[in-house]
């Protein structure tokens, strides 16, 4: 089962939020932004295949 993805996302989320907090406090706002952006992209690369497969499955159900 792909339940692991939830934990992965959660881990990424926690890490990104901690990192961006630290970076913001040390005054590197642009780095904080980059970190959160990369986290977002990482999560999206995991999620999007699932969404695609879901909609393909639905499409198959229609036929």
């Amino acid at each position, binding site marked *: *089962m*792909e*339940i692991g*993805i*939830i934990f992965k*996302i*959660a881990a*990424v*989320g*926690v890490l*990104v*939020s901690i990192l*961006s907090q630290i970076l913001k406090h040390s005054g590197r706002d642009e780095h904080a932004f980059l970190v*959160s952006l990369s*986290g*977002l992209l990482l*999560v*999206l690369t*995991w*999620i999007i295949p*699932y*969404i695609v*497969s*879901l909609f393909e*499955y*639905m499409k*198959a*159900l*229609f036929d």
Partner: protein
Amino acid sequence: LEIIKIMALAVIAVLICVYLKNTGSPFHLYISLSVCVLIMLMVALKLSSVIESISKFTDYLKYSGEYADILLKTVIITYVTSFTSDICKDSGYNSIANQVELFGKITIIILSIPVIFELLDMTVIQSFGCENTKFETEYTEIKFTEINQKYNASKIKFNNSTENIFVLEFEILETASLEDEIDINAYDYSEIDAQLENTGIQNLTFKEIITQLINGEFLFWEYCKSIIQNRLSSLNTYKTTFVNILLLAVFSGIFNALASQGSRLGYDTSRIIIMINLVVILSKLFTNSLRVCSEAIESILSIYQALMPVFMTAVAVITGSVTYAAYYQVILIGISLVNMLFLSAAVPLIRADYCIAVVNRLSSPERFGKLVKFIEDGVKWTCRIIIIAFTGMGCVKGIMAPMSDSFKRKLFYKSAKIIPGLGDSLDVISSAVYGSGIIIKNGIGIGGIILIIMMIGAPLIHIAVNFLLLKLTSAILQPMADKSFVQLIDDIAGIIGLLLLLVSVTGLLFIILTGLICVFTNSY
């Protein structure tokens, strides 16, 4: 134990989401999204097995192949729509969610448009006969002109036959034989036999029936048995209809449960599609019964028109021209009354009633219930009134007309008695001739009654079986099916009951009329 997995997944996801939401990062949205996708994937997996079993199921259902397809699509669309719009709402974008729902609704409506057209085809065009109305009015006109022609033709026949009667009488007097056969042969049955063959009763002639009747050999039960056996052989079609409706009810249960999840619209659509499916089955049953009913009425009318000249000649032999004319008028009025009231008014009215009943049950709050009931009551009351009118006509004419006739008759015999050398023997012979004349007249009359019973037997059984079938189905389905589903079946059963009433009343009318004429012309 997938269910526990899913539950655990959902709970864990919610816990993580709550934590992430508090830290202020946008990642809780991704988590909820991915959980939704995961669960939806599981649902889709399950759904595919459901769809497989349903498609197996639809193989048993005769008429619902395309409908099941549309229904499945509706279900999937409602699921996808609600999934997407929920995610949008979670992210706080209500307007996008609304647009998604709107699009889903429109897609469902577009999907169900062909079904709605099918419904129109089934009920309005087929039942009202939009394309056929012209044809039908022409048809009834033809019927009326036909009757008029027959009337004129038999008028001529009457003039001929009054001459014939006296020739016949003297022939009988001359031969003075008490054998009935001669007398039976004196009438022309060819037209009745032609009608008989038209309506599908072969290898049986009217003369046979009468001879058998007069000789007391008529095996009525044999004929009835053959008719019933004929009908029972088509029992299989009834069975398939019955099973179809039952399966459809089960089907509707499954689909209503599936579709009610998504939205109100999905539920309504699935309900209406199931109902339309039912309407398709029912309207096959209904149009079949309607056709059988009108054919039965028409065949009774035509057989009566063919029988009338013979019967009336027999009556004329016994009574005389005045009574003949009176009864002729009565029967003619009767035939055109039945033709006008039943074939041209009641049958189209019942068709309209059927359509209204269908629309009534399709609209979710009942709208035309009173109208349906009103038309039903109207037809029932018309039947009652017509029975009373017929009995009245038969009786009154029977009492009024014979006076002058019997007087003439007695005069004829008294004057005949005066002839020297013939007087006494003529008395004996004339009473004998009268006796046999009455027997033959009654034989023809009862033969006509039996013919009507035979003609009416098959359609009556057919419609009655349809009626009972629907009643039984609605009774069985009441605990498990949708309320409007059961009520629609019940309504249509009531309307088919009206057809049953029409056919039996038509038969009864002519049986009463013939019986009355037989009884009232016996006392000469």
